């Protein structure tokens, strides 16, 4: 598997970011300093601005105030400095698996078609999909589709990987497999990861650090550094004392954050294109 070189990660500095869509502020001076190669999970109640944060990091949205810097330089919206994995695999249904993975390289136009194909094939192998190159997305299972999305993002060798509840739609077993898979890849490639999830287990299992977001505009509720030893593996890590301890803490946090009264309750949360995009993707 090691025919892929380590990519490495960039430092990410979110500095005093203010953002609002309309009336109410979503972020009112949010600051997070992410180390190169750090695996950061962000967890918080629905509507607290997790997707908004990723959109800010990816340059789809701009902060009203404050800055976002990647390796010390403000992010430029025009160049894709990041890999993005969406909640639901947004593969292009008219392209085969390998063509999907090639897509970014094709847009970039630096490689010859042959080199592109070869590179895409390698990344498909990396995510364990050797032999499925010529399948269409609809002939793959949900987990496999999400692997393809991952390969499609990774093939661009981004030094920052943004993941918005990437395994949220998968069943528990597949999700755990994907968690292990992601850790293996991250270990091998070393990117900085900002990982959004609703799932406490997932956050604790994967990350170096967990940020719990409060409802807007209250920002960070807790910034927890996760000292579970690596390499992690399901049976040992998930049953360890420390794992349970983190989990308990986070459950208590979430209970507090979720109970704070807020006009955007979980159920009638349905406005805004970014939210709608996710819902569309869910269909």
């Amino acid at each position, binding site marked *: 598997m090691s025919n892929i070189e380590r990519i490495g990660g960039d430092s990410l500095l979110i500095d005093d970011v203010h953002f609002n869509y309309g009336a109410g502020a979503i972020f009112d001076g949010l600051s997070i300093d992410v180390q190169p190669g750090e695996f950061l999970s962000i967890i918080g109640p629905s509507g607290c601005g997790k997707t908004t944060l990723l959109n800010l990091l990816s340059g789809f949205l701009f902060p009203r105030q404050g800055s976002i810097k990647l390796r010390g330089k403000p992010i430029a919206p025009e160049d*894709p400095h990041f890999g993005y994995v969406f909640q639901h695999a947004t593969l292009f249904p008219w392209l085969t698996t390998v063509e999907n993975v090639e897509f970014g390289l094709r*847009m970039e136009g630096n490689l010859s078609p042959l080199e592109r194909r070869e590179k895409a094939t390698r990344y498909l192998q990396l995510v364990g999909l050797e032999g499925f190159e010529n399948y269409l997305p609809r002939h793959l299972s949900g987990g496999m589709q999400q692997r393809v999305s991952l390969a499609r993002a990774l093939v661009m060798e981004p030094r920052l990987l943004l993941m918005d509840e990437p395994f949220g739609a998968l069943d528990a077993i597949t999700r755990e497999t994907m968690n292990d898979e992601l850790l293996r890849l991250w270990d091998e490639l070393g990117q900085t990861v900002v990982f959004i999830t609703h799932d406490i287990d997932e956050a604790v299992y994967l990350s170096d650090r967990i940020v719990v977001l409060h409802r807007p505009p209250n920002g960070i509720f807790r910034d927890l550094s996760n000292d579970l030893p690596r390499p992690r593996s399901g049976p040992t890590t998930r049953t360890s004392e420390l794992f349970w301890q983190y989990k308990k803490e986070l459950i208590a946090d979430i209970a507090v954050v979720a109970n704070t009264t807020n006009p955007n309750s979980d159920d009638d949360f349905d406005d805004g294109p970014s939210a*709608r995009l996710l819902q*569309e993707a869910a269909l």
Partner: protein
Amino acid sequence: MSVIGREAIPKRSKSTLKLPKFTWAWLSIPSLLLAWMLIATQFPSYILPQVWDVAEEGYRWFINGELFPHLWASFLEEVGGFGSAIVVAIVCGFMAGFYKGFREYIVPLNGLFMAIPPIAWAPLMLIIFGIGYTTIIVVIFISAVNPMILTIMEGVLTIQGSEVRAARALGAKKIQLFLYVYLPASLPFITAALRIGFSQAWRALVAAEMIGATQGLGWMVSMGGEIGNSRQVLLGIVLIGGVSWMFERLFFRQIEKRYEVWRLN
């Protein structure tokens, strides 16, 4: 975009040479012909000719070369009217899909034009353009362009925002987004629009030729009626149906089959 066909489907067992499976569809045309023959026995040939009489009539038109100018005329008109409708519908359909303002503006117009049977325009066009190609092409255009615009617009609207987002996250710029996302994603409903447009155009063509032409398949039918030649009338009808059916089968069906593989409902 290259691999949409066979390679893309997971391997199947080797297909062996077999007769296609029986379906009831096999009986539809033969039973119609049989009914025609039976009914025709009850009438004199100059009122309702037999199947073979019409076939013979067709053979005669074919042999003496009279048939081709008519087919050719209808073909040219269809190409002119339908072809220009395709171009306009693709431009307007995409614009209506992309721009809300344009959509709001054009949808009522589409509805209005679709409420008027296209043939109702023929007399006016005859007054303006006189008998000939232009009149017929304009009528075809009016009938085909409106449903096509709506179909393409609806299709563009269903293109998932998430696909566009994903493409942008992979570095696709504006033109690339159009070429590599919007265009391939819209091929299925462009095909659907072509199909609808073609059949609308064909109907309008025949109707318009019956009123304002000196040749063409529609003219064959109406002229046959005027001179009381029921063989010519029936031959015209068979040709009108046959040509349309051929296009449907050989062309649109085949294109559509290719997308069915990945098309999501």
